[in-house]
């Protein structure tokens, strides 16, 4: 756009203020406020115009210390590397063998996180199942129940047990390969979910026992238990119903992971899932996404410490999620002590979300490929975060599933490559001592030394 000499009143601004090219700003000698930057100004203008908080998907966008701030110490003389592509580096993982008689045995430690049918189309759910099954890993339901498409195409399906209990029923419970009791999500620890009316189609409404087209709110607390002493009894009930066969996970949004992990273990969980603040979400208040919870990097050492102190590290498995993108992220999470990871946002991208081929349609929605986060709107051009039949039909579950499988293979191979370089014949043998940090913040959070030093801020 061009900047006219006359100031334009904000409410008449033809394009969002943040769209002014940086070159124009420089040419005019304008200086942007760090406090009231253009995104902040746009947020204030949006709030003033609508009177409602901003709801969006995609998870936290702010920059926080992350896996990028860690580096591996490849082997050379003091430790010896394995021969890439030849010497074996195993990737399999057993989840849930603490109490359950039928634990999951996955071929890769990269699993698919819970995302609801409702937030996602049935085709997208099917594609997640296909992709995960192709590489021998698990996928997870979400708030709203289990669809036949997903169950049918998922070799290992984790059934989420959520506060809303939408679509919860004992038949599906018995069909699940694992049960994940959800206390919170990294994007919104302490908050309930929501699904706006555009996505409450007849089928979604039917599965959730809700009127079609309403804005659905989800509870933030379970209706029939509160706290670990009652959770222990709840886990006992679920085990009784499933005859002690099915592993039971407890998923927490990362805020106080040291305490919450310990309490999940004491309550009898087989597996603890810790979701950091970079974890995605389909629809939540932006203020919640950006301001509640702690980064994944900071959460892992706390959770691992709790497991170690209770003597159950590797016995009660730890799954970590929130911002996993590459095999390096996978390897770093595991080196810090995770047994497996879960991916959500990255899986959606692999399916085809925010694909540049839909650039024009993203632009028509006031967004761009790579920026689209209005998952609550149900108008996703890629046909993934929608219930619109025409849009949803754009996603071929077979092809999308295959793309996801490819991506999962790459993540696994990348993690193996790093593990071999660190001299490991199994991903599980990665350890914190294989890592150093690039920044003081990451060093303090991950509890690994600042690169080139033996210093860990805050370590005793």
């Amino acid at each position, binding site marked *: 756009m061009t900047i006219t000499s006359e100031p334009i009143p904000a409410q008449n601004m033809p394009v969002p203020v943040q769209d002014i090219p940086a070159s124009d700003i420089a040419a005019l000698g304008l200086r942007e406020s760090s406090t009231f930057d253009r995104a902040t100004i746009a947020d204030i203008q949006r709030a003033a115009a*609508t*009177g*409602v908080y901003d709801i969006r998907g995609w998870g936290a966008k702010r920059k926080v210390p992350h896996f990028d701030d860690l580096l591996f110490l490849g082997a050379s003389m003091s430790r010896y590397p394995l021969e890439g592509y030849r010497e074996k580096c195993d990737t399999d993982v057993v989840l849930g063998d603490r109490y359950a008689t039928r634990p999951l045995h996955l071929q890769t430690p990269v699993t698919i996180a819970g995302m609801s049918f409702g937030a996602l189309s049935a085709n997208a759910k099917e594609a997640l199942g296909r992709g995960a099954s192709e590489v021998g890993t698990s996928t997870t339901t979400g708030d709203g*129940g*289990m*669809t*036949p498409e997903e*169950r*049918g195409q998922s070799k290992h399906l984790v059934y989420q047990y959520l506060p*809303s*209990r939408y*679509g*919860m*029923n*004992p*038949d*599906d*419970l*018995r*069909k699940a390969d694992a049960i994940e009791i959800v206390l919170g999500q990294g994007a919104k620890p302490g908050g309930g979910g929501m699904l*706006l*009316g555009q996505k409450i189609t*007849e089928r979604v*409404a*039917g*599965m*959730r*026992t*809700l*009127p*079609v087209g*309403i*804005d659905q*709110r989800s*509870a933030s607390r379970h*209706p*029939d*238990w509160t706290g670990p002493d*009652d959770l222990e*009894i*709840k886990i*006992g*009930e679920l085990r*009784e*119903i*499933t*005859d*002690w066969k099915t592993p039971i996970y407890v998923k927490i949004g990362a805020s106080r992971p040291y305490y919450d992990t310990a309490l999940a273990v004491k309550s009898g969980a087989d597996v603890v899932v810790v979701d950091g603040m970079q974890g995605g979400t389909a629809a939540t208040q932006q203020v919640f996404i950006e301001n509640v919870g702690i980064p994944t990097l900071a959460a892992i050492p706390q959770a691992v410490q709790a497991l170690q102190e209770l003597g159950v590290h590797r016995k009660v498995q730890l799954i970590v999620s929130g911002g996993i993108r590459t095999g390096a992220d996978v390897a770093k999470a595991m080196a810090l002590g995770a047994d497996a990871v879960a991916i959500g946002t990255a899986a959606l991208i692999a399916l085809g979300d925010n694909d540049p081929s839909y650039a024009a349609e993203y632009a028509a929605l006031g967004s761009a490929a790579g920026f689209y986060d209005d998952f609550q709107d149900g108008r996703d051009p890629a046909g993934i975060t929608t219930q619109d039949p025409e849009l949803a039909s754009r996603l071929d579950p077979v092809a999308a599933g295959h793309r996801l499988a490819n991506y999962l293979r790459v993540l696994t191979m990348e993690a193996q490559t790093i593990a071999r370089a660190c001299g490991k014949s199994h991903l599980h043998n990665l350890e914190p001592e294989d890592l150093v940090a690039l920044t003081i913040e990451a060093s303090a959070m991950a509890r690994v030394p600042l690169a080139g030093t033996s210093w860990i801020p805050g370590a005793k």
Partner: protein
Amino acid sequence: MVTLTAPETSTAATHQEAETVDASSAGAILDTFSVDLAGSPVRELNQALHNAVDGQAWTVTTPEGKHSLAVGINAHVTVTIDGHAGYYAAGMHQKGDVTINGNAGVGLAENIMSGRVHVKGDASQSAAATGHGGLVVIDGNASARCGISMKGVDIVVGGNIGHMSAFMAQAGRLVVCGDAGDALGDSIYEARIYVQGTVESLGADCIEKPMKAEHLAELGELLTAAGRTDNPANFKRYGSARNLYHFSVHNSTQY
């Protein structure tokens, strides 16, 4: 390919008739069994009930408030628990008929799908929470959060219910022959509530609604199904004002 949605969960906005199948409609009693929990673990009881076939009748003695009694039943069996039950008695119940000759703890018949659960005494908080179908009868009082997030279950309480009952109740019917506590039906969706006594206060978006002939009729059926003789004409009906179905800035203080 498997069918994953139970028939009783397959409808939403439209109301579904209460399914009150009992063992007798599935055939004559085949055999009777009895389990004394003084000398036998709950695990064995539940495993036996999961292996049970239609028509069997089970009696459980010395329950002494133990948890997760008779959970996950999925056959037309009759279970009688002689004494008080702990948390989640008859949880996720399907098809069968469970009677508790005593009180029940937290989460009685939680997520019940079908069949019938009858408590002769009182029920603790969150009775019939998230129930999708079937009938839950409580002769005594139920405490807080009775019928929370109910999704099609019918509940008949002979006495009073506690605060926050029918919170976010989506479908089904809650009948209270006594009084209701604070914030009844807060954020209610399409469930219907009938109260004979007083209501301490109504929750957000819950209002009194007229009793039409159809409501008197369905209330009469529910009371009869619960073995009660209260007069439907003495009840008031409550349900959703549907003002919170769509986010609106005007309702921001209500959420």
